[in-house]
């Protein structure tokens, strides 16, 4: 049963992947006959003939001169070689190369944020559940309403204003030389950590409170289960019950959300990266958007979607290991 479940999930992920890449192919072609016009919109001071020539060049450069169906096939062929196309930037860099350049910097932010918020969140969530109804719990509850009402970008602005400009504890803008000068030396890593502090904090606050609240609810739900009563009736010590019985079960729903949240973090870091001028995927995407660089935008989109699909698949398979009850596509 387990094996067929794994196969089924993989097949399904492949199916979703195909739908996503097809959508991705068609989005820049929405409502327009000639995608070349979208890739190179007419600019002022350009005569019709000039524009026609530019469009012709664009068509041939990006393969729009063949039928749409053929374009789609070419697109698939390119993808099979991990070729996401060519950016409109000067020098026509490959989209995959641009993504590869920026991805690590985004991962630095999102993975650190995820680890911090997961660790602290689970910790305070467990404490709040343990001290249910006391001040620790009330604090978490109020913090969660407040933090949801305070968007991360507002927190980021406040932090950059207060900690960055007023107290000058951390750089309010990312050091533009950070990326270029990075050489794996301790000093460089320290600089990165210093620059990443504010973006990570502003993203992690929401995450900590979110995971805290989820953990709390989940732990409380598990505590009310009969098997915890059984564990207590066995005379097990409180710590044993907490680690072996409560947390293991309470973590299941949180694990499920993990895959989604990492891909969400990468996609959602756009605003934070913009505020701190962090040279990650988010800023890359905004740059692409401001110049109408569709191949780059769609490349990033496809990359993020694929990332999400894989992350989902991994958590699902991981979940099977954690929860023996999952067999045929049923989730608890």
């Amino acid at each position, binding site marked *: 049963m387990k094996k067929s479940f794994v196969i089924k999930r993989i097949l*399904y992920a492949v199916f*979703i992947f195909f*739908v*996503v890449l097809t*959508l991705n192919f068609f*989005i*820049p072609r*929405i*409502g327009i006959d000639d995608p070349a016009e979208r890739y190179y919109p007419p600019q002022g001071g350009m005569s019709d003939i000039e524009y026609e020539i530019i469009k012709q060049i664009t068509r041939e450069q990006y393969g729009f001169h063949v039928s749409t169906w053929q374009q789609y096939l070419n697109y698939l062929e390119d993808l099979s070689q991990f070729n996401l196309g060519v950016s409109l930037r000067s020098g026509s860099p490959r989209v995959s190369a641009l993504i590869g350049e920026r991805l690590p910097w985004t991962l630095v932010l999102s993975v650190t944020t995820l680890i911090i918020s997961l660790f602290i969140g689970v910790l305070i969530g467990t404490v709040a559940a343990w001290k*249910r*109804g*006391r001040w620790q719990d009330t604090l978490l509850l109020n913090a969660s*309403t*407040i933090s*949801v*009402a*305070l*968007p991360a*970008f*507002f927190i980021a*602005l*406040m932090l*950059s*204003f207060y900690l*960055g*400009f*007023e107290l000058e504890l951390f750089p*309010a803008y990312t050091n533009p030389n950070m990326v270029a000068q990075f050489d794996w030396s301790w000093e460089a890593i320290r600089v990165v950590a210093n620059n990443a502090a504010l973006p990570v904090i502003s993203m992690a606050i929401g995450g900590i409170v979110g995971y805290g609240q989820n953990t709390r609810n989940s732990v*409380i739900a598990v505590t009310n289960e009969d098997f915890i009563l059984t564990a207590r009736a066995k005379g097990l010590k409180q710590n044993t019950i907490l680690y072996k019985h409560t947390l293991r079960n309470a973590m299941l729903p949180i694990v499920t959300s993990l895959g*989604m949240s990492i*891909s*969400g973090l*990468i*996609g*959602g870091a*756009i*605003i934070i990266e*913009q*505020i701190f001028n962090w040279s990650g995927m988010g800023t890359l*995407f*905004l740059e692409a*958007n401001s110049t*109408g660089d569709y191949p780059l*935008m*769609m490349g*990033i*989109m496809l990359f*993020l*979607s694929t990332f*999400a*699909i894989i992350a*989902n698949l991994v958590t699902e398979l991981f979940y099977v290991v954690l929860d023996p009850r999952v067999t045929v596509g049923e989730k608890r």
Partner: protein
Amino acid sequence: MSETLDKKTIFQRIGKNVLKRLKRIGEFLGKLWKHPKGRIGLIVVTILVILAVFAPWIAPYDPYDVTQRAAKGLPPSWQHPLGTTITTGQDILSMLIYGTRVSLLIGVSTGIILAFLGAIMGIMAGYIGGFVDSAIMRVVDVMLVIPTLPLIIVLTGLFGRNYFVIVFVFVAFGWTGLARVVRSLVLVLKNSNYVKAAELAGASRWHIMMRHILPGTSHLLIMNTALTSAGIMVAEAGLSFLGLGDPTAISWGKMLADAQGGGALLFGAWWWIIAPGLGIFFAVFGFMRIGIVMEEIFNPRMKASSGIYKLFKNLNNQYVEEVFASMDERKLLTGDVKPEPAESG
């Protein structure tokens, strides 16, 4: 239902239904008002609505007036309670009040449309099942992996930056979560024995849908409208902050973007940042509170678990001892202490 109903009775029935609905809403607002947390939410939202509707009369200055050179960068004072902008000298309080319009309009309208779409999709998937179900769920799964914010950015780029497009995109990509929840609830309701009893009595699908399934999900939909409205307000502010909102309107997100771009951070004009932030905070907070309180009202189990601790804190020890003493065999025998009917503690 039989076809013999004439128009008059139909109108009567509709009238009756409308009255009933209104009464329900009234009752519901009453419940919210009675709940201490709900009251805060209700007050905040009411104030925001008043601000939005009567903005031109309430706002002390014209927020679009960018000609006040003398008033540039004033900190909060009696003249300008929230100060003015550094760049153009616009009155921030007035901008804030006008910004309420955008946030509420986008938030509430998207929330409501989303609730409708999510409910329709979820109910179709859950109740009709089969092919419809798998088709809808496949769409949900695809939407789930596409990164929302980048997609919204691309689509607003394609279709133009006005609020119709923004609402449309929010709706088109926001219904999936609700549809999932509604679907699983509908599946439970559909298999319940009371639906089976209605089927046995010859009920049509329409009857079951309108009398059993839809009322069963209504609490979820109302709650969801409040919560998604709050979420959409944040999302709209984020979009405007990136400069992707409607460029002609004043919105809180755009105010923040202007503040950042205009060097509010650099020149220490903290009021320029805090004001729109507070606007977002109160709007989202108010709607969230209402949503959470609704969840508590509709899902009494959660209330019970948090309420019991409060109850225990305020427990009257003497009363507890009296209750225990009243159970003693001896006293019951002599008959001078009767086991009085339990009253609230």
